[in-house]
């Protein structure tokens, strides 16, 4: 590895990313060996969450500034991709009133995805130019405003977005192999970003903004870069979401999802990519278990009653408990390879 122009942290980053990728591959492998087909959908959803949470780590984790607008960017990308890729014949039914000829064209999956990335990325740049100037608290508050604004546009432009009704007829383009590949690439990129010069400066500015500025770090620039990179992760997640489910609606791109993903990041430990991955996997598994209990399952002959609202209740409890007892997350500042090293 000596010929690679990487410093030791970056080489470790490669190692850590590879280990996390193995973990992901192991999960997918387990599914193909023993899983039931209905679990594919579940696993896909977990991986979409993973894309989002790893993307959150890029800005929120490194800059240590929480932002809540990611569901908005994800939703924008999902809608752009969906509207572009859905066949004209289908859109005549699903989007009969769409303005600006939105229902009169269709793109290939690749160009639809690229267009969605481009548009979301530009919006990320536009908001980022403004966000990167704010104080940490300001970013958090304005990011909520962005989320609310975008959501209300989704809801009230029913001619384009169908609001809370489903926008249906999106062809199914992705499946488990594609999202697995995306997740692995995302992990590598997020980790590479963390260990890059920009990531390092960003983390330094998070620890001591004044000091970092004094050392010549252009805090505005590094924040902006992280913000836009993060946005692209969310866009990818949105595209992957739309390309699998066949229908999308505005509802999932809102607060519940936002707080779910942020809790995943915080439970894992927002300063580390490993934390992002672990937090996502843990909360996803826990919730899946509760959802199963909620349906009133039969366990060893006993039929349990159906309890509506239990999974929601538990999500709330998990969030409150993590905030109260584990605000720094289970990983803290550590990455996966740190464990291996210590064992040696």
């Amino acid at each position: 590895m000596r010929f690679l122009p990487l410093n030791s942290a970056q080489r470790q980053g490669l190692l850590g990313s590879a280990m996390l990728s193995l973990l992901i591959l192991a999960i997918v492998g387990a599914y193909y060996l023993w899983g039931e087909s209905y679990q594919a959908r579940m696993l896909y959803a977990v991986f979409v969450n993973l894309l989002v949470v790893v993307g959150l780590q890029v800005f929120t984790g490194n800059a240590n500034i929480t932002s809540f607008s990611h569901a908005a960017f994800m939703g924008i990308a999902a809608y752009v991709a969906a509207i572009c890729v859905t066949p004209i014949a289908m859109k005549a039914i699903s989007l009969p009133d769409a303005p600006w000829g939105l229902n009169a064209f269709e793109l290939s999956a690749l160009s639809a995805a690229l267009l969605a990335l481009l548009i979301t990325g530009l919006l990320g740049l536009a908001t980022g130019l403004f966000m990167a100037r704010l104080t940490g608290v300001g970013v958090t508050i304005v990011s909520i405003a962005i989320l609310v604004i975008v959501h209300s546009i989704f809801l009230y432009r029913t001619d384009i977005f169908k609001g809370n009704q489903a926008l249906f007829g999106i062809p199914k383009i992705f499946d488990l192999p594609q999202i697995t590949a995306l997740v692995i690439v995302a992990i590598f990129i997020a980790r590479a970003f963390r260990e890059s010069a920009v990531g390092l400066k960003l983390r330094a500015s998070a620890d001591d903004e004044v000091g970092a500025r004094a050392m010549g770090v252009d805090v505005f620039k590094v924040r902006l870069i992280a913000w836009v990179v993060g946005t692209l992760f969310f866009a990818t997640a949105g595209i992957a979401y739309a390309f699998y489910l066949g229908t999308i609606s505005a509802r999932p791109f809102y607060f519940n999802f936002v707080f779910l993903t942020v809790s995943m990041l915080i439970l894992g430990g927002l300063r580390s990519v490993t934390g992002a991955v672990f937090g996502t996997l843990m909360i996803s598994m826990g919730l899946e278990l509760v959802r199963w209990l909620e349906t009133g399952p039969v366990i060893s002959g006993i039929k349990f009653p159906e309890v509506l609202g239990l999974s929601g209740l538990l999500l709330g409890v998990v969030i409150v408990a993590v905030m109260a007892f584990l605000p720094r997350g289970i990983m803290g500042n550590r990455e996966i390879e740190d464990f291996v090293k210590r064992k040696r």
Partner: protein
Amino acid sequence: MDYFIQQSLNALSFGAEYALIALGLAIVFSIMGLVNFAHGEVIAFGGYSMVIMGTLLTNNPFVLMVGVVAACVFASVALERVAFRTVRGADLTTGLLTAFGVSIILQNLFLLFGSPRPIAATQFIFLDRTIAIGSIRVSSLQIYETVTTLLAILALMFFLRRTTLGMAMRAAALDFEMVRLCGVRANRVIAGAFAISGLLAGLACIFIMARRGSVQPHMGFDPVLVAFVACVIGGFGSLPGAVLGGFLLGITEVAVLILLPQSAGGLAHAVVFALVALVLIWRPDGILSPAREKGDKI
């Protein structure tokens, strides 16, 4: 002219409701840096209490009104005790997520013990009648709402300026530690803030119930979001800002409804929020943002 007066009243009453809720958010934020997203569930709790009191105790609306306000004050103070005390002094995100977690928990408790569908509670509907003042026909509820809000704001101003606890709250917004160094108990100041916030939520709850006539687990969330945006416009943590932001939102909403052609009515919210975005680009910290750096408290 009549039309103008009607629409002005419309705008004022919208704004009044937003301002009441926004003030409740702002007073807690100004003192402990917590964006209390569970504020909406305090309102919903008031609604559910009304259902329970209405079935078990009395249908007298005035007794119920007192009961609703008391229930909201109780809920607000109890939430601080149970949930927010552990994250006192934590950063904004921790507080915000805790508040949201609490909000989800309460919504789902309402769901578990109530019903996902609306439950009727119509005792306050009588507040909403069409009355004629001269040749102008207006909604009595809108008048009550506007007047009550103005009175509440005046009472709050009196409380904050003239009483020791109120003064301590204003001082705590600037330097909580120094207030404690003056021997004022932190718990009292914070409980006071939550009590006031609950009281305002109770008033808002009465008007919301008068308009809806039913309760639902999620009924508090949207009003609080609008109030949140009002706070952002006005400057987060600034009480005058919350009032200003609330009324500005109400006025803009009605103005957009009037000015846009009927067919584009659904766009009102989007236009309002686009204007909000413009305000934020113009003044990222809100119109009346507090002078100090908004940040960690206590």
